[in-house]
């Protein structure tokens, strides 16, 4: 048989039918939805008189609009009436339709892409779609996971399928091993800086190589999460022993004999020797350093201690134009160092970097120091929050002057009202630095949790290592 890559294996296992032009009717195992779009999907299902085909395959989680403070007062604590209404619609209508609802007051509540892996809902070999672009996160466990719009999500819920064009594939081979000073976030920023925001366009990416194999699941979740930021439809890591031991015993993971059958199948989900990819690139994992974005797309990422590039040196006129616009928007000059740039806020959290290891890494930098700018920590889920509090990480943050919040998407997307004031500069562990992403006129620098923590202490954009030398 012709060698197949892991994407092709999962794809062909889910192909219900193929049209002549390559469009595939792809079977969908799980549909992820949040309250930001639930209402629109529910309205469309109602308008089309479509029942939910397989309610147990739908996971509906409250994360985008939920407040990250005053959670104790429940829904009454939601200041904005419309947001409260939409959260309640997800919880009530989801319940009526029989889908798996993880509502605002649920003990498991958190960001969809933190909660599903944590609960063992994400397995290798699944096709997972979500009404959220960061659904690519779930590829970390070897699933084929991608974001879709609400019309497609409605279709997936009504028919358990999606029409998809044949997958273009790409392998990003990361050799060596990440140095201790660099994180998974720095790796994915390095990859995006190299490939550009359109570099993965339309492709399903497999991350492979020794540096990827050495990553924990939490780190792989960070890498796969940001696949969408280079335009890729999905990113995944073929399942291995790290994956299997992460999944074993989680609430929604298969148990007993099912586990054995599942495991035997999961072990087949590797790219065969000689498997073909439409594009392959190699990155030296050992050369990854702490990174930060200076501009308004994720390809505007540089080593955090490097000078801001000069658009005059950019040969491509379109990139040069984008550079100039980004510099003006961010109020920065070519040659300037980010470590000389004063900041107004720090945000630690999101589906990219809101997991326990992220909070540990940030707390390790913060311990015994003081934040010099307002800094905000929102754990990725209540489970993460509880685990962090058992380790007393909350105390480390609070004693350093950080705010310790409840879980949600919060300031990453600003959909719940956690936003910056115009022209405020924020160092964030989230995933997008787009103009106005964190509120009109907001300026965002994307970094790792350790660098975000260091920046809160320094009041400037710095890595943990730079913080040491400056003190």
């Amino acid at each position, binding site marked *: 048989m012709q060698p197949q890559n892991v994407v092709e294996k999962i794809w062909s296992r889910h192909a*219900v*039918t193929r*049209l002549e*032009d*390559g*469009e595939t*009717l792809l*079977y969908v*195992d799980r549909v992820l939805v949040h309250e*930001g*779009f639930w209402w629109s999907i529910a309205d469309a299902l109602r308008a*089309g008189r*479509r029942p939910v085909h397989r309610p147990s395959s739908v996971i509906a989680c409250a994360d985008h*609009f939920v407040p990250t403070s005053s959670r104790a007062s429940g829904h009454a604590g939601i200041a*904005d009436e*419309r*947001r409260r209404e*939409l959260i309640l619609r997800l919880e009530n209508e989801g319940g009526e339709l029989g889908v798996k609802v993880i509502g605002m007051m649920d003990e498991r509540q958190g960001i969809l892409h933190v909660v599903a892996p944590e609960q063992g809902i994400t*397995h290798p070999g*699944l096709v997972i779609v*979500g*009404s*959220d*672009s960061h659904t690519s996160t779930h590829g970390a466990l070897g699933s084929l996971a991608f*974001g*879709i*719009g609400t*019309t*497609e999500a409605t*279709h997936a819920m009504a*028919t*358990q*399928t*999606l*029409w998809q064009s044949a997958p273009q594939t790409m392998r990003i081979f990361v050799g060596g091993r990440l140095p201790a000073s660099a994180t998974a976030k720095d790796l994915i920023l390095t990859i995006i800086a190299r490939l550009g*925001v*359109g570099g993965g*366009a*339309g492709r399903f990416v497999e991350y492979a190589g020794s540096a990827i194999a050495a990553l924990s699941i939490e780190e792989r979740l960070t890498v796969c999460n940001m696949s*969408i930021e280079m*335009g890729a*439809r999905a990113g995944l890591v073929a399942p291995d022993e790290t994956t299997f031991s992460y999944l074993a015993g989680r609430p929604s993971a298969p*148990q007993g004999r*099912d586990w054995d059958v*599942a495991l035997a*199948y999961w072990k087949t989900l590797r790219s065969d020797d000689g498997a073909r990819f439409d594009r392959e690139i190699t990155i030296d994992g050992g050369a990854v350093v702490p990174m930060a974005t200076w501009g*308004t*797309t994720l390809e505007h990422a540089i080593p955090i201690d490097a000078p801001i590039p000069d658009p005059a040196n950019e040969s491509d006129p*379109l990139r040069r*134009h*984008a550079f100039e616009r980004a510099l003006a928007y961010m109020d920065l000059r070519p040659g300037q160092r980010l470590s000389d740039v004063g900041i107004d806020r720090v945000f630690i959290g999101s589906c990219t970097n809101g997991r326990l290891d992220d909070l540990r890494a940030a707390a390790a930098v913060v311990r015994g120091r003081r934040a010099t700018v307002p800094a905000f920590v929102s754990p990725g889920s209540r489970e993460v929050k509880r685990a962090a509090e058992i380790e007393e990480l909350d105390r480390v943050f609070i004693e350093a002057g950080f705010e310790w919040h409840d879980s949600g998407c919060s300031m990453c*997307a600003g*959909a719940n009202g956690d936003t910056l004031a115009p022209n405020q500069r924020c160092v964030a562990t989230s995933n*997008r630095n*787009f*103009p*106005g*992403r964190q509120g*009109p*006129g907001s300026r965002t620098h994307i970094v790792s949790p350790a660098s975000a923590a260091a920046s809160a202490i320094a009041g400037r954009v710095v890595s943990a290592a730079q913080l040491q030398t400056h003190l």
Partner: protein
Amino acid sequence: MTPLRTIDAVAVPLDESNVDTDQLAPGRFLMRSVSPELLLHDRRFDAQGKPHVGFVLNDPAYAGAQIIVARRNFGIGSSREAAALALPTAGFRCVIAMSFGDIFYGNCLRNGVLPIVLDETTVGALLQALRARPGMHLVVDLPSQTVAGEGLGPFAFAISPARKQCLLEGLDDAALTDRYRDAIAAFEANYYRAFPWLA
């Protein structure tokens, strides 16, 4: 979905790359139904809701435009369908660019908006012409898959046959999928025999 065949309309030159979904439909509006003001809201309006005079979409010379021409990476970012739906709600039926965000591209097709990919030279020529002759029309013809303007083109573009058919007839995916109900049922029977814990 409204069928789409030919658009003969004013085109507006948005000479930028990386017009992302947060610009197209800012996150703080996602809890509302899409309004004509949503599209590129913070680019078009100031904090008081007054139009930014310098922004090309507010330029009266391009009033009534139904086509946007932009550069690279149009619609990168979020899956929010509002970013695509904001276009027809504001009167736009077509975006021409060198490349698109993948999810946005799919969302356009499902909201009766035609995303057209053309090469750098062609997009550059279109932008130049639209700036030089504000208010000029472009003619987008889906059946023949061409874009033309006075003294420009026709330029051919590609689109998947299935997507083209849906746009031409105003069909949604469900109509097509319903023809495969039996195939889906057969697939499920086999699939859940192999993976019963997923059922």
